[in-house]
């Protein structure tokens, strides 16, 4: 369960101070599927960073389960990211020099999983996103939809509590977008994940049980 209390995030840009999140108080229950919408520059990615333990708020508190993310050190945050949080990005963010299988394995490396188990689990994860025949392909040899599937396999192979996605379908055509969304929803339903998706796409947002709207750092329920 996420609990955000009076979370404010300001950036010191070159000319002025930018308030990306403005006194946000919010609770997200385990197993919820939440869509976050809003205009560009509204603070969607910034909120996802707070939830994903990528950054600490300027003020206020963020807790995930028993961990107070806003107070922990870098090393501890890395550990929580490694164990409990899966990420999917708009640009897929695969390591270009590694094969599909090796990309998935990178998520298991910080957990100390042995080589052979890593390989088995990576292959299982790739099979579960429908890429059994693409283990040894480099990202450049895969289509956008296939790359995002590899990224989803990488996010889920560690069996996280939370899956965070920042515009996961933003770079894909409509048909592929629906395939990816179905895949994500399927995992959410099967694994009891907390799934939080940032999207511009209302068709995507409508699939979620709960929708949040962020504008100028202020969050409201839709």
């Amino acid at each position, binding site marked *: 369960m996420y609990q955000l209390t009076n979370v404010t995030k300001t950036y010191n840009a070159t000319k002025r101070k930018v308030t990306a999140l403005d006194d946000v108080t919010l609770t997200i229950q385990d197993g919820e599927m939440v869509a976050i919408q809003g205009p560009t520059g509204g603070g969607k990615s910034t909120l996802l*960073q707070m939830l994903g333990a*990528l950054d600490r708020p300027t003020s206020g508190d963020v807790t995930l389960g028993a961990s107070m993310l806003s107070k922990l050190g870098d090393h501890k945050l*890395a*550990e929580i990211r490694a164990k409990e949080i899966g990420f999917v*990005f708009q*640009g897929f963010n695969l*390591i270009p020099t590694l094969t599909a299988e090796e990309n998935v*394995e990178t998520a298991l490396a910080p957990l100390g999983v042995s080589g052979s188990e890593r390989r088995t689990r990576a292959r299982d994860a790739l099979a579960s996103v429908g890429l059994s025949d693409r283990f040894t392909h480099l990202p450049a040899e895969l289509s956008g939809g296939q790359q995002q599937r590899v990224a989803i396999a*990488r996010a889920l192979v560690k069996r996280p509590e939370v899956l965070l996605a920042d515009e996961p379908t933003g770079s894909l055509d409509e048909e592929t977008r629906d395939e990816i969304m179905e895949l994500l929803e399927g995992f959410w339903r099967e694994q009891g994940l907390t799934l939080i998706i940032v999207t511009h796409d209302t068709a995507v947002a409508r699939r979620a049980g709960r929708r949040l709207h962020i504008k100028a750092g202020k969050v409201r329920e839709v």
Partner: protein
Amino acid sequence: MFGTYLRRELLNRRKQTIIISIGMALAIGLVILVNSFSAGVQNAQASVLQSVYGVGTDITISQAATPPTAGATGGGQQGFAFGSGDGASTGGTTNLSQSRLTSTPTQTVFDATQLATVQAVSGVAAATGTLSLENVTFSGQIPQRGTGASGTGGTRTGGAAPSTAAPTGGADGAGGSAFNLNRFSVLGLDPSGDSVGPLSAVTLADGRLLSAADAGTDNAVLDANYATSASLATGGTIAIAGTTFTIVGTVSSSGSDSATAANVYIPLDVAQTLSTNTGKISNIYVQASSSSAVDQLQTTLKAALPTATVDTQADLAATVSGSLSTASTLVSNLGTWLSILVLAAAFLIAILFTISGVTRRTREFGTLKAIGWSNRRIVGQVAGESVVQGLIGGVIGIAVGIAGIVVVNIISPTLSGSASTAGGVGGAARRAAGAAAGGGTTPGGEGGGFGQRAAGGGGFGAAAQQAATTVTLHAPFTIEIVLIAVGLAILGGLLAGAFGGWRAARLRPAEALRSVG
């Protein structure tokens, strides 16, 4: 994961790997070559020194020569005097020959009791005294003239100007005369001791060395080069100061091409008697009990013998002159600076390329951080890549270096060095070449004296001393050089990795969410 990721990065970002590795390879190859060349020059210097001073010699002691004063009366001492009764006359020609054994002009003899003083100093493992001498033989033929000349020809000594008393002047005055000046160096040494001193570095070419039983006998050992040039051999004889010595053996330098310390070696006591230097020596060779204590021992010996010149091997190495010393200077200055410069450039290239590589991979490292990679893991990955690039460079560099060494050894340049300097241990590396110079000497006049002053003698001495020892440069390939290369490769890799890693550690994990593309 580490290995897989590292391999994929190096293989799939080949351009960066190649640039960094080639830079390191060139630098390391150069370092290896310079190192090896420098070791080769040092070996060559050592071989010149060893041929002269002996292997185990750490310190040599001598007395600086007091420079002869101009027109010194010493000239009389060095002159050859022929009386009218001297020489054998046959068929109208008078044959004259006189031989003299004197201490080397650049040397000052001192009391042999100083050897005992040296031996008593703690830290001296062994010490031996030698007497450095020079045998000069003046011989000639003079045709007999009519009245007066042969009968009343006065005895002249000293460095006199060309004779004014010659009854027949002009160019014809010496017509039919032939004079010859022959000189060679003689070293008197303790026949029983060969652990330290000039004969400790020689190889027996023929016959035997001197032994304790030779003390007091007229037995001599010859430098093999000299024996050849003077057409002498073991079993034959050589006249020294009018005394006939039996040649019992010949020796050559262990270092190729080098001449040994002197032309002729004879027992010390015989040398002292023949040269009227009873109880005197000119040099002491010292072996230190510990090679690390040589400098300390030098100080102690200087204190014990205030008037003596005490030189260590290092001091002596500085006196090796000729192209050898030019090569040595070249290597130590140009070579070292060039290596440092190229090495610094290679390190800089590696650092800059690594940093720019990390910057290009901002999103990649941000993503890895976002999915839970710790800073340490990422820094380790970056450093690992750099070290392997460095090592690849090191391996190529070793190959380049070996190729360079092979080329040097194929060319095998010859360097000449002379280990003999004024004030140093004289008579060293001396060759018979000087003897030939004697042939050009113009005699003062018939029946007259032939004077050779000490100062003038310096001219001959110098000519003899500059006869150089030639050494072929061999650049050695040693395991230390490989270790240095590998160490430098790792150092370069670590340095680049440290900078790249520092850059990567500062990246925020939130970078993963930025800049799509």
